[in-house]
């Protein structure tokens, strides 16, 4: 085999991911068939559950918000040539930051608490990424391994804090008391009600728009600033970066700080927007889904938005599936996520050569 064939841009960005997604969905259908349900019925149920009602769309976008934050986090690191697999831990610790602010200042109005919570979430998330970043930049420790270790350290730390320190007295389950009302992220239905539009209630909240803002910000930073240029040069070729007067260690640390900060914002949606308290394992694997989202979205903010909505729809549609079909539980969503990552990420070259042959391109042998 020679180097992977180059495809036309539209095929590279549109057709190939679509084919991969299709393959993953077909295989998911096979799993559903094995479970003894009709894939056709399951597909319809998922589609209707995710997009068939205002409430369903609200849930879909609410899940998508989490995935946008973690997907952007993976993408920013990726452009610097780093694989940040620690989004889960950074989101967990970032959420701790936002949650602490919400617990502390919850009695104040939202326009005071909100910005503080955003800042704290980003700062805590960035801080959790700092050590792996520094170790990669200065001591060459492999960031994939260190960020995995930091995921586990974060989980231990949070279990300790929630069980021993932050737990609401006199209760069994490890979670804090409810935030003060001032720390509730305004819900989409409330915001639109003020504009005279009635929306069905759902956990969709202002954090969705923050995530969109973050996507725009990442686009600006990566493609429209001098720093973004440095970031991409380091990601492509560190020797070239040094020759151009860019310091790779500095850029690596900065990229990881931004990456951690983005992942750290997950708590704004999950905790301030929906749960209104800090609870155990609230990121729920969103950090790992972010890897899939970034891959599918080709590490571009717009692609990440689309992929995040897709994964949000899978999550919401899957809950509907588990609700309606007795033989299927929520774990089916995890299976589909795994298959999508497999086909869109690891097996993405499988369809490349046949496609290239169809286009009559050379390079695939």
């Amino acid at each position: 085999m020679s180097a992977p064939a180059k495809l036309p841009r539209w095929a590279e960005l549109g057709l190939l991911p679509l084919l991969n997604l299709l393959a993953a969905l077909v295989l998911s259908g096979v799993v559903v068939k094995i479970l003894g349900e009709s894939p056709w019925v399951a597909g319809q149920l998922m589609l209707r559950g995710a997009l068939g009602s205002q409430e369903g769309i609200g849930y879909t976008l609410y899940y998508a918000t989490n995935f946008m934050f973690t997907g952007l986090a993976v993408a920013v690191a990726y452009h610097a040539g780093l694989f940040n697999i620690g989004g889960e831990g950074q989101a967990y610790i970032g959420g701790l930051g936002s949650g602490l602010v919400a617990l502390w200042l919850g009695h104040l109005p939202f326009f005071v608490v909100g910005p503080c919570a955003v800042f704290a979430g980003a700062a805590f998330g960035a801080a959790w990424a700092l050590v792996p970043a520094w170790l990669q930049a200065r001591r060459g420790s492999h960031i994939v391994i260190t960020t995995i270790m930091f995921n586990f350290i974060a989980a231990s730390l949070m279990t300790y804090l929630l069980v021993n320190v932050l737990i609401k007295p006199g209760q069994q389950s490890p979670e804090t008391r409810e935030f003060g009302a001032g720390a509730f992220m305004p819900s989409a239905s409330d915001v639109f009600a003020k504009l005279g539009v009635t929306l069905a209630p759902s956990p969709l909240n202002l954090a969705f728009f923050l995530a969109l803002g973050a996507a725009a910000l990442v686009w600006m930073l990566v493609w429209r600033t001098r720093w973004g240029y440095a970031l991409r040069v380091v990601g492509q070729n560190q020797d070239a970066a040094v020759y151009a007067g860019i310091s790779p260690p500095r850029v690596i640390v900065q990229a990881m700080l931004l990456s951690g900060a983005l992942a750290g914002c997950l708590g704004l949606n999950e905790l301030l927007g929906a749960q209104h308290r800090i609870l155990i394992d609230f990121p729920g694997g969103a950090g790992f889904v972010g890897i899939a989202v970034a891959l599918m979205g080709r590490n571009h903010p717009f692609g990440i938005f689309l992929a995040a909505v897709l994964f949000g729809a899978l999550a919401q549609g899957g809950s509907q599936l588990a609700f309606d079909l007795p033989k299927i539980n929520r774990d089916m969503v995890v299976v589909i996520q795994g298959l999508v990552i497999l086909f869109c990420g690891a097996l993405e070259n499988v369809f490349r050569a046949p496609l290239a042959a169809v286009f009559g391109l050379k390079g695939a042998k």
Partner: protein
Amino acid sequence: METYTLIVLTLAATIRVATPLLLAALAGLFSERSGVVDLGLEGKMLGAAFAAAAVSAATGSAWAGLGAGIATAVLLALLLAFATVTHRGNQVVAAMAVNIMVAGLGPTLALAWFNIGGQTPQLDQPAQRFLAIVWPGSATAREVPFPGLLYAELLSGHNLLVYLAAALVPLSAWVLFRTRFGLRLRAVGENPLAVDTAGISVTGLRYQAVLISGVLCGVAGTYLSIAASAGFTRDMTAGKGYLALAALIFGKWRPYPTLGACLLFAFTDALASRLQGVALPLVGVIPVQFILALPYVLTVLLLAGFVGKAVAPRAIGVPYAKEN
């Protein structure tokens, strides 16, 4: 006397906790020495744990369970090899995909087939599990604290897979460092181009390494579900695959130091359950979570070069593209 018994029992628990870690770490050793990052240990183990418990529940035979566990892990390993060696896909992404997929697939299939939530039925027949083998004379030896208790608790009283794991350490060391196959395997992880130039297939060697990893992960997963416990439960590997990887790094990709790391990590685990809520002199109660996080912290410190230096196989994680 009391303290002595406690120490011996903690060490015995250490051996039991270390076994799946050791099997998975040895699996990772073969794979990573050939240049393929093995983040998929977790998923392969979990898949094997489910298959072993399901087949053992259905057939009533622990050996059939072991066979199914190994077969499942090997299939997953082949999938990983197909994605990463044949199609040169990203090794980290492929492994994450398999880990996530298996984490969902186990409980999903368990629900559909056994209909008791996301787990397999309780295995209550002795033939369905690998049970402890009591060595002759351990009941009487127990009466003598030293060395009788050591014999009864540390040498005797483990299941077959524990002894298998122990035997696999010298065997792996021999294969990797004393055979032609081992030399080639290590070479392909350091400099695949040189191996290719010598007319040996890089792809073939990496497939073999990944397959060995699959077999060992199969045994590790089987141990979890039908030897250490009596059935499969959701997410029962609980990060052991990643911990094994940490042990492998901590052991600097060498068999005996890896064994040491597995024992150390398992000891912290056994200690954590012993020390739960116990006030120690001077320091008071140490939170269990801190002890449990210790292996990860130690590994980070090692990777940082503060405790020795861990040097990975040079070509690790890099797909090999043959020139034409």
